[in-house]
């Protein structure tokens, strides 16, 4: 039996909603897949598509981006700007052949600890089914300076 593939997932989350949601999941003692590395940012509007690319280039198999629900942004409309950016960025990834399935977006509020745990589980399962991001990992090897996550 081959070992189960454990994907590496990077989550970029906003500090006011999703990070607080993750915190709630933790304090509520909810168990979720340990495959995700969380990076906390002030707002989803702060999440540059560069971050997502960089994560993939450093060997992540999937990326999760999450923030406040529309209308709930601490900075009033950071997440509206982010939403447009993501839509365009997703299309760009799709067009260049990087499966948009590997980059997930969601809205999770500070009260949705269980949604956070469920999401991490389902995203991990999805990425596990997709398998390792071989195409990029091959390219990383060619650079001769493979930096691993």
């Amino acid at each position, binding site marked *: 039996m081959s070992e189960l593939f454990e994907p590496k997932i990077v989550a970029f989350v906003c500090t006011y909603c999703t990070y607080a949601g993750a915190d709630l999941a933790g304090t509520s003692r909810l168990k979720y897949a340990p495959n995700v590395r969380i990076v906390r940012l002030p707002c989803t509007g702060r999440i540059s598509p560069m971050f997502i690319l960089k994560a993939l280039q450093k060997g992540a198999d999937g990326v999760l981006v999450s923030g406040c629900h529309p209308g709930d942004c601490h900075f009033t409309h950071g997440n509206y700007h982010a939403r*447009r950016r993501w839509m365009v960025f997703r*299309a760009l990834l799709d067009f260049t*052949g990087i*499966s948009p399935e590997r980059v997930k977006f969601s809205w999770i509020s500070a009260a949705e600890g269980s949604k956070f745990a469920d999401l991490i589980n389902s995203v991990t399962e999805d990425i596990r089914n997709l398998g390792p991001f071989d195409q990029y990992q091959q390219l990383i090897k060619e650079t001769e300076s493979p930096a691993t996550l």
Partner: protein
Amino acid sequence: MITQERYRTTVKELLANGSIKMAIGYKPGSTPDRRRPLFIRTSEEAEQLVLDSTCVQNLSGYLVSEGLLSDEKRVGIFLRPEGVRSINILAAEYQLNADQIVIFGFDSTGREVRPLDGRSAREFSGLLNELKEKPLQIYKEPLLERIEKMNAKERFDFWQEEFSRCIKCYACRQACPMCYCRRCIVDSNQPQWVNTSSHTLGNFEWNIVRAFHLSGRCVQCGNCDRACPVNIPLRLINQRMANEVLDGFDHFAGLSATQEPVLASFKKDDTETFIL
């Protein structure tokens, strides 16, 4: 030829009466079908002006050269319709004042060059709105449609093949009128966002990030495509992104000098089908 002569006279007149301090046009290049930019300050220099169907370069990038417009004098420039769109975008992004630009519009069908009416970007709005209504003709490209029909793996292989040739000369950036940043993201090294060596991974990073920065701003002038020394079909990515913002946000870049940049604005009811 008639158009060329007429414009030559117009440029001389405007220079003589001081309404413009300079005109940017075309002069013969190293081969018969090539043109290079001409900066006309005197009526003798105006004699070198050439205007024919091979004048394809979008010259609007020269307008944002440092100091050119800071004396608030007016500058004339030869532009095709997509060049006028560039002027509008640059004005909307506060890079220049559209009132300072005197436009010598032209367009060509086959080898025939015809002048376009209007001297200021505002006067072209009718023409640009027509362009928006029939974008399919501009955006339909056989290769683009072929790529869209591929599956993700085929697409990745296609771009990997194309990007593997990239030598990171940044000619696309230098040629692009929209790439005016004083400090480009590839030049920033703390943190180093884009790998500077030209391995395929770094080339993916560079070309994706450039396409993203041009989303909703590119006018398909084709400068990058022609500048690329290894013939990467850069116009395809930029066209795809232009289609995306047109379908998704009804945004056609460069319609007016007051148009909000698509990625710097939002609507509360933007689609979000992909969000979990």
